[in-house]
């Protein structure tokens, strides 16, 4: 078990200086996510331009994996359409959970999360932001949980 695989420089950097941190008010969609295991909470706000996510921000308190994953996610999805975001989430999910997941160039910087799969209890930390984004896009659920 190699900590450097988990806490890569990209992860540590995004934890220290999260990108797109804050709120969008008013927003077109907003949801709160909660990981009861570690107490992590985060909120995701989106502004939409038709099917496209024109702007996204998040805020909350969480571990390095959760904060960095949310920061990387906001960079990755900004400007993308819903359908493309869904496909990207599927790729991230495979990256986090499948031992033999082949590196996918579409992941870009998100590939830095590949070390998480060696730490099964931390997968929820990395996926919380994506579930919360889905809820924000659905604009229906006001709170999601990883449990």
């Amino acid at each position, binding site marked *: 078990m190699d900590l450097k695989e988990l806490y890569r420089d990209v992860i540590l950097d995004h934890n220290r200086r999260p990108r797109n941190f804050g709120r969008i008010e008013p927003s077109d969609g907003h949801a709160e996510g909660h990981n009861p295991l570690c107490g*992590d909470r985060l909120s995701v706000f989106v502004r939409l331009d038709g099917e496209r996510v024109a702007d996204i921000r998040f805020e909350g*308190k*969480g571990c390095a994996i*959760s904060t960095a994953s949310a920061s990387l996610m906001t960079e990755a999805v900004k400007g993308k359409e819903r359908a493309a975001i869904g496909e990207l989430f599927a790729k991230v999910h495979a990256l986090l959970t499948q031992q033999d997941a082949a590196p996918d160039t579409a992941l870009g910087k998100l590939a830095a999360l590949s070390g998480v799969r060696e730490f099964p209890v931390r997968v929820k930390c990395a996926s919380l932001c994506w579930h919360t984004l889905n809820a924000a896009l659905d604009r229906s659920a006001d709170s999601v949980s990883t449990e």
Partner: protein
Amino acid sequence: MAATAPHAVPAPAFDAERVRADFPILRRIINGRPLVYLDSGASAQRPLAVLRAVEDYETHCHANVHRGVYALSQAATEAYEGSRERVRRFINARSTREIIFVRGTTEGINLVAQAYARPRFGPGDEILITALEHHANIVPWQMVCEQTGCTLKVAPINRRGELLFDEFLKLLSSHTRLVAVAHVSNVLGTVLPVKRIVDAAHKHGAVVLVDGAQAVPHSNVDVRALGCDFYTFSSHKLYGPTGIGVLYGREELLAAMPPWQGGGDMILTVSFEKTTYNELPWKFEAGTPHISGAIGLAAAMDYVETLSLAAIAAHEQRLLALATEQLGRMPGIEIIGTAPHKAAVLSFTMAGVHPHDIGTILDAEGVAVRTGHHCAMPVMTFFGIPATARASFGCYNTESDVASLVAALEKAREVFA
């Protein structure tokens, strides 16, 4: 701790290295490092004496209890009821009729909530707890409040994690029907002044339940000296098996309570017209009990008493003092729970490193600590933090374990430098 402070007891010689040899799991290698187990507050490890007692029972003595006329069933019954007597002596209850075997502390509290509080309480009645309770000593009372219309009151704590006793007294009134408090806080380590709490509550006619899960492993608990009405604890935090615990209740209270669960073993006669319930304590033990668990718990009680609980507590207090001093000197570490009278529980945060990340990095060094909200979310809210890391010490921990903790925390700081 119950009647006397652990550090006030003269410490008999205590050889933690010899104690370690009794715990086979401590020889495990975790992530390439020898296991440093600092999570006994969540669940303690089992000594060979407990493992062997359980194995011996399962191998040679098992049958159902209270049922057969054959020799094996009688042997199992004797072993099970012998364990009940062992528990009675351990906490100095008057009678084995006051010792109910339950699944653990959580079930003990729920039993009292549903069989004592629920049939008696109504609108205008109050249940008083403290702000440092485990969820198991909050939620069952909230359920009773929903069921009966009674009200839950919460006595506050200060930033050191101590109960504000004067505020507690102000909340006591003729409306208070029941007071439920932890003996020792699982997050903060604070030892509560249970005797004073009991005396004050009784003046107002309220009964007192004590959640002793974190106290029993670190002190000689004497339920008669405390004067409490109910006392409950789990076996697995006392070096015994999981899935079994104890509810002590004063006999006159238990006798007046209706059964909680119905089934076999808790009845004397059953017909479709009328069923008569069994006597204490079996009235509260429906179904086949956790026989081997009770036997393992009795073996654990023998084990800690052979070591001497006073000696264990003194040893743990030395480790707590050492760890508190060393972590206190590390920049960015904040210790959560700084009451002068604490059990060997050390919660902390580290600036810039989330407790969850501390837990992962420590694990890579073989150091097992608990991280998270410790089933005490209101305590986290009070301190304005989402979570803490918590090291808790048992009879088998050593100065070397404290050194490993400190070194692993330095590693965490390096990773996040």
